[in-house]
């Protein structure tokens, strides 16, 4: 059984739709403040082009746990 974690950061673009940036293996000690700071930095630097324009606001952030149970392996 293997568990992997992914951090998903959701942003709102100029068109009002959501765009997600995900990152594997987030730190176990990750705090809300750290994630918020990184998301603010991403918005401030404005280097991403989405189909709905620039990223303008934060929507949410979540950590997804994914567990894989191998049924059989040859």
């Amino acid at each position, binding site marked *: 059984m293997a568990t992997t974690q992914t*951090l998903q950061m959701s942003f709102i673009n100029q068109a009002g739709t959501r765009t997600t*940036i995900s*990152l*594997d*293996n*987030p*730190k*176990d000690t*990750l705090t809300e403040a*750290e*994630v918020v*700071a*990184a998301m603010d*930095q*991403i918005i401030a*630097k*404005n*280097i*991403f*082009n*989405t189909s709905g324009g620039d990223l303008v606001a934060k929507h949410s952030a979540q950590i997804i746990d994914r567990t894989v149970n191998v049924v059989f392996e040859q």
Partner: protein
Amino acid sequence: MAVEKIPSGTVLRMQFQTGLDGDGDPIYRTKSLSNVKTDALDQDIFDVAQALVQLQEHTLMAVLRVDSAVLEEVV
């Protein structure tokens, strides 16, 4: 014949070392973020990479900027 170079896309690529394999050689993993503006500043791309790296646990080996361009004949 004259050719014009038109930027068509930029990708931010972060190379991580995730561990060592059985022989003690490093295992690398790459995270790519496409949809980077072709006119984005190197400093800004680097800063975003740093902000993302701090959120995860692997060691950053390199930050790469991959620019693509289309070559077109100028009539």
